[in-house]
């Protein structure tokens, strides 16, 4: 089988053409760095993504504080994780890196704060 991937690891966005059988990659063309091959292998076996959103913050100078995951989760779980994040709420001040939900949905990734929001 042959398929063309757009690598999302870095802004170069290499177009990588891979020949594969099931999850076994036989040949790769177009990657300008070794991460390309890893990305293709991951996409074939278990595609993963990070997501970013916001949660409510109480008593802060902004109504929302941004969050993201500290490692990618399976693509198929994105909306399940969004539902879990949508239940979250924190109190200002918030600090970058603060974990607001460890091991979201048992997927091994933490939801972390990505913005310092001062208290009012």
């Amino acid at each position, binding site marked *: 089988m042959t398929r063309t991937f757009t690598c999302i690891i870095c802004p170069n966005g290499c177009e990588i053409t891979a020949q594969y059988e099931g999850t076994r990659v036989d040949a790769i063309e177009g990657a300008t760095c070794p991460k390309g091959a890893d990305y293709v292998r991951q996409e074939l076996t278990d595609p993963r993504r990070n997501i970013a959103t*916001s*949660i*409510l913050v109480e008593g802060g100078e902004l*109504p*929302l504080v941004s969050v993201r995951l500290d490692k990618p989760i399976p693509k198929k779980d994105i909306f399940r994780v969004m539902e879990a994040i*949508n239940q979250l709420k924190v109190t200002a001040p918030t600090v970058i890196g603060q974990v607001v939900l460890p091991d979201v949905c048992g997927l091994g990734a933490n939801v972390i704060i990505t913005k310092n929001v001062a208290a009012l």
Partner: protein
Amino acid sequence: MQQNYDVVIIGGGVVGSAIARELSRYRLRIAVLEKESDVCTQTSGRNTGMLHAGFLYKTGTLKAICAVEGNQEFDQVAAELDIPFKRTGKLIVGFTDEDRQRLENFKARGEANGVKGLEIIDRKRMDELDPSAGGNFAMWCPASGILDPFLYTIALAENAVHNGVEYHLNCAFTGETRQADGTHLLHTTQGDVSTRWVVNSAGLNSAVVSEQLGIPGYVIKPVKGEYFVLDKLAGQYAKIPVYPAPNPDNTFDTHATPTVDGNVLVGPDSQLARDFQDYESTQAAMDGLIESGSRMFKHMDRSYFIRNFAGIRPKRIDPETGVVQDFVLECRDEVPGVVNLVGIESPGLTSALPLARRAVALIAQREVLTPNPNFDPVRHGIRRFADMSDEERAQAIAENPDYGEIYCRCEKVTRAEILQAIHNPLGVHTVNGVKVRTRATMGRCQGGYCETRITEALHQELGEAFARIDLGPQGSWMFTGSVKGGDQA
């Protein structure tokens, strides 16, 4: 709404608001019914903002008489109402011998109408006046001027309110029942009101309202005109309005007009509108404006485009011949208690106060009006940071720190002005209401920087839920609600 009025005015455009203001000189209970969310959303706000001189109209018509009268008094009007106005003069340019003949004819007509200072000038003189104007020769009309049609209408309405008139916004007139005592019971979308007098200044709907009030037979043709608004960077090349020689039917083709704020308007064209709400811009008309506008204005460049809009002129026509007719201003004995204005189109902005005085006179011929001893003709507008000197700015900020906080970057509108606009005397609570009162969102970024601040301020100042904030007309919601819950939306 109060139930009994002496006069109810249907339509709060520039003419209705001028009538309200002139009637407030007398001891009368007056209300204005406006079906839209603000007073200048239709024909009154959708035009070139031109103070016409009156050379175009047939001698002796109301259009000619009112335009000349309105033009001559406008310096005082602008001062009383505290609105931006510039008597720029106007060039009506020609290319051909035929054009020259028409310009000569209009000069003669203008002089007969009482327009002062008209001259036919050559290219050399045109270059002195405005080198960016196209054409080989021109008629120079020093009496013409430019004004802000939004602020003029708003100022008339605010002055009327200041003198006791009530405005009912989002209140559409739906019909009339004549009562046994001769008074009118007016049906509206906000309930019934009774009144001794009704004034029809419904603009685009004036023929329909006229019929509802018992005077059928008028035919209004909606004629749409589209415009481009150009950046102030183009405005530096446009000093005075430049019009082409009028067509044989006395209409003007596309022209380029500097606005009183320093932008340039290119337009309008002229096309039959689909209906009275057909404000859509069309590709064909835009292409036409680019082509014809380039002949009038040498700097008609895409990089200067910041916005398009369309307006509709309610042209009263003879149903038999289709020929455009004069303004109607009447009070018929067989339909007592009704002052009827139909087909007020250009030069309606210039003619608004002269028409208003004549409307008041029609009432005064039928009953004695008692002067309102408290009438105050002066209205104060929102002081604009953009118009201040550095010293004035420093002083304004010292007095009110909100004058230092820039909300609209492009037009240099401060938080202080936004807050004054939100708490306007008419009770208009929309984003567009703030826009037309302050110019915020009217610059080259079109609200990219300030719109979020304006909606926040509307929420904060009025305690209005975000989901209930409208851009302009009722139903023009901007937000479905909050993203993540919480109490603010």
